[in-house]
């Protein structure tokens, strides 16, 4: 039986109640909107990228605890990272929440590993990451997790 506490860890409640890097980002040079049609979550992500390095990442929107905490944790994890690293991190994160083996060092993102016990919630956890992908590739269309 999957334990709810694996999914809803204290860190996740904390980031849900007090999301980090929440709000607009003046001077952003990368942007994308994400949308989860399943639960109606909307997420707007802004980045400041200089010399291939993500200097700032902020998000706005409304979502469930998992998608809000995931976005909050992601923006923290992104700061100072090279753009080129992101694809690998996303891949690792995706594998982690799907319960597949991964090798990338996840740091604080590892609190979301419990999502793998709740397949219906994988989309919530990855919405921010899909949106990030779109922002870095400057896709015009809002992304969805479908």
């Amino acid at each position, binding site marked *: 039986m999957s334990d*709810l506490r694996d999914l809803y860890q204290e860190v996740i409640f904390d980031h849900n109640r007090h999301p980090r890097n929440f709000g607009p980002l003046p001077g952003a040079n990368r942007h994308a909107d994400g949308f989860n049609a399943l639960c*109606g979550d909307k997420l707007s992500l802004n980045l400041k990228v200089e010399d291939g390095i993500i200097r700032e990442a902020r998000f706005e929107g409304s979502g469930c*605890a998992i998608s809000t905490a995931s976005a909050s944790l992601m923006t923290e994890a992104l700061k100072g990272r090279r753009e080129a690293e992101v694809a690998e991190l996303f891949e690792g994160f995706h594998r982690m929440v799907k319960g597949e083996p991964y090798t990338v060092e996840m740091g604080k993102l590892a609190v979301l590993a419990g999502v793998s016990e709740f397949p219906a919630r994988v989309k919530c956890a990855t919405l921010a990451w899909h949106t990030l992908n779109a922002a870095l590739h400057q896709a015009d269309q809002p992304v969805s997790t479908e």
Partner: protein
Amino acid sequence: MFDPHLWRRQFPILERKVHGKPLVYLDNAATTQKPLAVLDAERYYFEHFNANIHRGVHALSQEASEAFEGAREKIRAFLGAAHVEEIIFTRGATEAINLVAQTWGRTHLEAGDEILISAMEHHANIVPWQMLCEATGARLKVIPMDERGVLLMDQADHLLTERTRLVGITLVSNALGTVNPVAEIIRKAHAVGARVLVDGAQAVAHVAVNVAALGCDFFVFSGHKLYGPTGIGVLYGKKDLLTAMPPYQGGGDMILQVTFEKTTYNQIPYKFEAGTPHISGAIGLGAAIDFVRSVGLENIAAHEDRLLQEATERAQRVKGLRIIGTAPGKASILSFVLEGIHPHDIGTILDNEGVAIRSGHHCAMPVMDFFSLPATARASFALYNTLEEVERLFQAIERVQKLFLS
């Protein structure tokens, strides 16, 4: 005295456990569970007379055709339609609405005409009309509602004009539970010469319907929300309208004669039933209707009203809970939000307690926009739900709040 425990025995799935706890199935507005009578009817068909219909002289085909047409007759009687050929099998409510939009709609609408729907329609009763507007230049108008989820009928009076060709209206709202005054709408629509399509998808399992008495021009529903199989649904249409409409899809069964120069279409209902239909589904739907009639729709409605009333009273005592949809005389649906907790999180935690509800926009995004919500949690009741299950629902909601707000 109606006893849901007796009827529960007809639904084997209700015995299963979810996450180690007895299942409490409260997602009936999405789809209902199937009684043994339906499962047996489908199985019996496959085991004893599986064959294609309307085309074989052999015994099996005869028997299959009789069972299929027998189901059509059961549906006619259930809806109170005058003629059996007014009953057309479709894949579901969605396909039935699209059929009307693409056949009747395309031959009766032109630029400047108007289609009137309501603020609480399911996407299935919005998008086909938008597509039709796109194709014909007609315009879509919307009857607004108030904060309770009650249609503003005085506004409807102004929106109904001689330009209105069609009114598409749901009898019961799947997002709010509101029962709409369709008889009044039909009367007023007919007074300006408009046709009316009633979306009965959410209604037929809870409200007795008589299409002849209502006078609606079209009525649609899906079998799977009426204890029947998925993939089978019904379009009822007035005989003269159906007869004059062009066919929907082309193929076998919908023709009388085909040459490479010219094809003569079959009569209704076959004109609209191209290809091999969902034979077992139709037979299963017939069995579902027999089942509902044996339980008695009035017994079902009274029981569900009691559950809804109890649930509503419980809900009103939960701090931070807001009921979405507070129209008087609602049918079987309790939509709600909890302060500070997203409906999707509610859904996961309830599921962990064995309680299945729906969380999301319920294919009614304009309703969510109206209430400025991304989503709601929705518990919806069926004949087999019990007061104990209502209790389990609220115990689980308490658990959600404990987990999130402590």
